[in-house]
């Protein structure tokens, strides 16, 4: 499904601020793979997501998704196939537009409507939105005409998740999407994520600082350090692995301890 070959990215080359964020990273995800990514701050996790989503073009290497070359496609073209959630719940929705309008925007971006600039959402679509919102179990289905700005962070993040997956994307990128939520809401959004991803068999990458989540969710765990993937655990090997095992495996792989308070404390 996703095939990343040997991508590199250096920011501010030739200056004192030169920073190699990705160095020769390769990664292949099979159809339906759900991989969690852990690593220290500055390991290049978010940079990897930005590279896949097209926020910048990589210096070297290639990115293929479902057989299509994304390497030089602009971000807005890639996002037809890639759903994305950020840590900040405010980033995924338009606050002054209603829940219904936000969903319509997400819904109308599908291939079927891509050239239909003047298509509108009809009664049938609205019923569909209502059913989808009911699945979130947050009472949003009765507030469809309210502006999204009135919702709480957790509700906005759940709505963003729905918008990103209502039309199943080829790849879902989750960048610590529950980190800014309170523990109860975070659990709820995480549960929804698991349900939606499993139900539609969406290929998914999730960055997390919660080692427990990293081992429990999905079928693969990746560890990143210095712009590379230093550890890739899946299958039988991953079952029964504890957080301590993971930390010691990281030490062996990266040649240093994981220096991140947020990880060690969680």
């Amino acid at each position, binding site marked *: 499904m996703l095939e990343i070959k040997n991508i590199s990215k250096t920011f501010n080359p030739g200056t004192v601020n030169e920073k190699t964020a990705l160095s020769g990273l390769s990664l292949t995800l099979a159809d339906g793979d759900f991989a969690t990514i852990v690593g220290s701050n500055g390991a290049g996790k978010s940079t990897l997501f930005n590279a896949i*989503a097209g*926020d910048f073009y990589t210096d070297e290497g290639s990115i293929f998704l479902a057989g299509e070359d994304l390497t030089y496609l*602009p*971000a*807005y*073209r890639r*996002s*037809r196939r890639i759903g*994305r959630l*950020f840590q900040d719940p*405010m*980033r*995924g*929705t*338009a*606050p*002054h*537009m209603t829940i219904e*309008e936000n969903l*319509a*925007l*997400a819904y*109308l*971006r599908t291939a079927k*409507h891509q050239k*239909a*600039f*003047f*298509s*509108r959402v009809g009664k049938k679509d609205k019923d569909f939105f209502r059913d989808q919102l009911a699945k979130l179990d947050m009472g949003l289905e009765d507030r469809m005409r309210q502006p999204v700005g009135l919702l709480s962070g957790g509700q906005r993040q759940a709505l963003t998740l729905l918008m990103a997956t209502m039309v199943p994307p080829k790849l879902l990128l989750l960048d610590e999407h529950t980190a800014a939520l309170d523990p109860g809401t975070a659990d709820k959004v995480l549960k929804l994520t698991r349900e939606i991803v499993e139900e539609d068999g969406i290929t998914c990458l999730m960055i997390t600082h919660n080692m427990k989540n990293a081992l429990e969710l999905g079928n693969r765990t990746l560890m990143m350090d210095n712009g590379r993937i230093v550890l890739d655990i899946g299958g039988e090997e991953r079952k029964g692995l504890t957080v301590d095992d993971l930390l010691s495996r990281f030490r062996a792989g990266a040649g240093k301890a994981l220096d991140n308070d947020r990880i060690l404390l969680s």
Partner: protein
Amino acid sequence: MLTIIQTALEAGFLYAPIALALFLSFSILNIADMTTDGAFVLGASVSAVCCVAGHPILALPAAMLATAAAGFITAFLQTKLGVPSILAGIVTNIGLYSINLMVMGTSNLSLFQKASIYTLAKDAGFGGSWYKLVVTALLVLVVCVLLVLFLGTRLGLSIRATGDNADMVRASSINPTFTITVGLCVANAMTGLSGAMVAQYNTFSDINSGTGMVVLALAALVIGETLIGKGSMVRRVVGVILGSIIYRFIYAAALRANVPSDYMKLVSAIIVGVAIAAPTVRRWAAFQAKKRKALAARKGEH
């Protein structure tokens, strides 16, 4: 008195499309489009030239096409060439001055005894003695309905999202270059329609008639948004039209109070300045009051 009301209503509707244009560019897309002044004159000039050639109805779409092209230039400068958005509008605006002279071939083109949409309506007995108001209001109504419908389409929603959350737009499949371009083209087409109607209404087009138009329209927009507030698109669009009419009544009242018409631009500037500054001033005043109270209470403790 009736004449004053009639004139104010006519002017309110004549200039309403510019307020709608700013509603789209300024309120929705969050871009201060300085193309407006030049686009207004371009609309008037194209309309006047078409009328001289005997095509008063064709003049309206022609003017809108021409001004949409001007909006395209502004959008191209800011989305593709990295010119800051306000500067892009100013650059286009200055360029349009020469273009407008080229279009008219003179600095003031008279339509004296030429057919216009208004003479056509009058000759057909359409709208009785209110024919000017009826024709203008009908055209504006059509524009309003089309605008509201447009803002509910996929493209319209994308344009609204572009101005509402840039982060979201970048991560969704919306191409901001495209939405900004379409938004500015549509906005300027509306400005052009206003210019086209005003030229036929006044039976002349003047190279300097657009000066300060962006601020006058902004005043109408701000009045409308302050009085009607935010809500559904229909409500907001109606608010803009009402704002434009109310502004023209203020204008008429000021003229009747013997304020020289030259001073009206100052009045408009003050309305816009005060209205836009109001929330900030209110916050500042509330904070000062709170601070004074807290300091006074502290003094009592010691």
